[in-house]
């Protein structure tokens, strides 16, 4: 039993439905057939009883005058084969006298005249006893259990004078073909009903089962840790299944958002940690570096140094200067004292970049609605603007246009840069703001990292998206009233 109960709904629903439909159809068919059989029998008995009454009445004068031949012609009349095949023909019609001897029979060869009816078998003997015991004036239907015959007996009597009994014998075999006819018609209708209902049941079962199965499969995957996704098919109705699907959709959406948030948090944490680490290291390097450069400068000024020594010192000095540059770039100091960002700064940055842009034949179009100073350190905002635009120019194809939009909305300053060119692949996108990551051969890969650090320290947000050959960076910074 277990394997059957463990079956998938995909099979279980249509299977159970099908079994129920078949059982119901069979039950209804059986009931109808039983009814048809009973009706058939009752019709036959009624018509037979009527026939027996008529014949008995007609036979009375013939029996009274012992007109055997007339009686024979009378009982033969209803057996005329020419009366159409629709009526069920009696097997035998026999008139008995009061001593249950044959007065006349429709089959004189097998049931001859004046023979005692009891001699034709036990059943006829019982019949004779029953007829002898009966005194009611109406026709009676006599049936013995296990017998293949039904008897209809009507007394041949007039005004209390009883001459004998008319017996119509029916074989049950004759209404079997007719019943078969009814039954086969019923069977065809039953099959038609099944032919209609079973496909409908199958279709309905599939409709219910398939979304359930898909839902179960998807939930199973989620439980195994596979990133959640919506089932491939949707269920459009508002029943419990529809509610379940919708709830699952909401769950998946929430899980996806949670996952994204977690990823984002991990990345910010990492970037913050990296920032702290690199800033610490840079600070630790920067302090002795300053001392070293001052010492080298003093050393150069001292006389008596030969050419070769000065050359070596110069080399060391240049190397240390490069280290200082790099370390300086990594030391993002947001707390530096600076004036507020003013509209003029935008033009300055544009001016500063015009050389590089010209070199790459890239146009920079700036659209700014800044009309008054914003309460943000000008140095840092300028650096953000510089870094983003420089990146955009460097990523652009020649003769392209870099679009820069600066907006002040309430207490938020947004900066957006857009450039056409190569779409950044996802693996680059996910590590975009980490140090020393660059898609550009020329850069050292600190530009965006520094930008990120600055934005973070200013309490703002930076996002990047790149699709269909368009790359966009958006920065939003909280800008209070002028300080």
């Amino acid at each position: 039993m277990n394997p059957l109960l463990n079956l998938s709904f995909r099979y279980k629903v249509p299977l159970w439905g099908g079994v129920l439909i078949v059982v119901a159809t069979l039950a209804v068919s059986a009931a109808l057939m039983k009814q048809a059989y009973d009706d058939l029998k009752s019709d036959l008995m009624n018509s037979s009883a009527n026939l027996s009454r008529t014949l008995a009445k007609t036979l009375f004068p013939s029996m009274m005058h012992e007109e055997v031949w007339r009686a024979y012609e009378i009982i033969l009349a209803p057996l005329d084969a020419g009366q159409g095949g629709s009526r069920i023909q009696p097997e035998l019609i026999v008139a008995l006298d009061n001593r249950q001897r044959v007065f006349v029979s429709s089959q004189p060869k097998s049931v001859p005249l004046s023979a005692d009816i009891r001699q034709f078998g036990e059943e006829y003997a019982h019949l004779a006893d029953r007829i002898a015991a009966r005194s009611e004036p109406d026709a009676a239907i006599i049936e013995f259990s296990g017998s293949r015959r039904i008897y209809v007996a009507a007394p041949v009597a007039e005004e209390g004078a009883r001459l004998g009994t008319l017996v119509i014998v029916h074989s049950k075999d004759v209404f079997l073909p007719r019943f078969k006819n009814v039954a086969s018609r019923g069977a065809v209708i039953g099959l038609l009903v099944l032919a209609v209902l079973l496909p409908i049941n199958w279709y309905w079962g599939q409709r219910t089962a398939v979304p359930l199965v898909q839902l179960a499969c998807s939930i199973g995957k989620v439980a195994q840790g596979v990133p959640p996704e919506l089932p491939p098919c949707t269920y459009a109705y508002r029943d419990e299944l529809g509610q379940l699907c919708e709830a699952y959709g909401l769950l998946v959406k929430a899980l996806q958002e949670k996952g994204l948030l977690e990823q984002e948090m991990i990345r910010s944490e990492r970037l913050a940690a990296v920032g702290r680490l690199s800033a610490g290291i840079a600070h630790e390097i920067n302090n002795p570096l300053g001392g070293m450069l001052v010492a080298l400068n003093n050393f150069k000024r001292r006389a008596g140094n030969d050419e070769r020594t000065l050359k070596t010192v110069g080399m060391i000095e240049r190397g240390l200067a490069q280290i200082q540059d790099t370390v300086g770039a990594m030391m993002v100091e947001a707390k530096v004292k600076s004036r507020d960002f003013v509209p003029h700064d935008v033009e300055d940055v544009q001016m500063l970049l015009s050389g590089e842009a010209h070199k790459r034949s890239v146009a920079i179009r700036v659209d700014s609605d800044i009309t008054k100073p914003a309460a943000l350190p000008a140095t840092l905002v300028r650096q953000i603007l510089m870094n983003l635009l420089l990146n955009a120019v460097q990523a652009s194809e020649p003769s392209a246009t870099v679009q820069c939009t600066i907006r002040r909305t309430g207490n938020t300053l947004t900066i957006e840069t857009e450039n056409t060119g190569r779409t950044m692949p996802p693996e680059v996108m996910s590590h975009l703001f980490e140090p020393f990551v660059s898609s550009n051969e020329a850069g050292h890969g600190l530009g965006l990292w520094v930008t990120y650090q600055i934005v973070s320290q200013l309490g703002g947000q930076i996002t990047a998206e790149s699709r269909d050959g368009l790359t966009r960076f958006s920065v939003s910074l909280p800008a209070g009233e002028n300080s």
Partner: protein
Amino acid sequence: MKPLIRIVLLAAAAVLANPTLAAEEPAKILRIGLTPTVPYDQYQLIEQWRLYMERKLNRRVEFIRRDSYIETMDMLRRRKLDYAWICDYPFVYFRSQVRLLAVPLYQGRPYYRSYLIVPATNRSTTSIAQLRGVVFAYTDPYSNTGYLVARHQLHQMGENPAQFFRQTFFTWSHRKAVEAVATGMADGSAVSGHVWDTLTIVKPELTAATRIVSKSSEFGFPPLVANPTVPNEEFRNVQKALLGMASDSKGKALLKGLNIDGFIAGSPHLYDNVARMMKAVGEK
């Protein structure tokens, strides 16, 4: 136009050609009784015979059919019939009350026989003596070949006809007696040889279900008789019409349908042996 003229002319010719029929005042209807001694259930044939007789006698003719001989005889005596075709036994029985009109010729002679028949399945019976205790079908208590002959034979054997058979019944017709034997209702019967022979032509499957055990000696053929009150002239006209049937083609066709060859005036002496048999059995 032409066909219409032709129809009108033909109708006029028909009226003019039969002036007496059209002019005569309604004559008394000639009533002829028929019994099952002839195949009177061949309705079309009897109707054609009736029309033939009307044409020949120039007056209306009516055939009146009755199943039992005694009823027909009653009607004859009560003058409900003018003529009747009856069996030879009632003719002898009521000889003083009827007048012999014509005797049919069967196979060229005014005689017929009685056949003792049993079901075809009975292959062993060779004589009526072997039919003791069976169910026997008689035709009519006033039938010669269907009743008197069989009883006479039993009488000759010293048997009491009333007790010899287990059961007897009357079918009121030779044809039905053949049917009774064919269906197994009766185990034996005596029937008119003429009717049996006719049935072999019109209903061979019926006679095929029976077998002839023996044929009796010859008896005068069932005659046509007249009511003694019938005027002589009319009697002669009717007799002439009957006797003349064999000499015209229409009459011949009717005779063929009745399975006889013609009619003769005949003599009551043809039936003398029936009278002897009747006396022997003690019916009169």
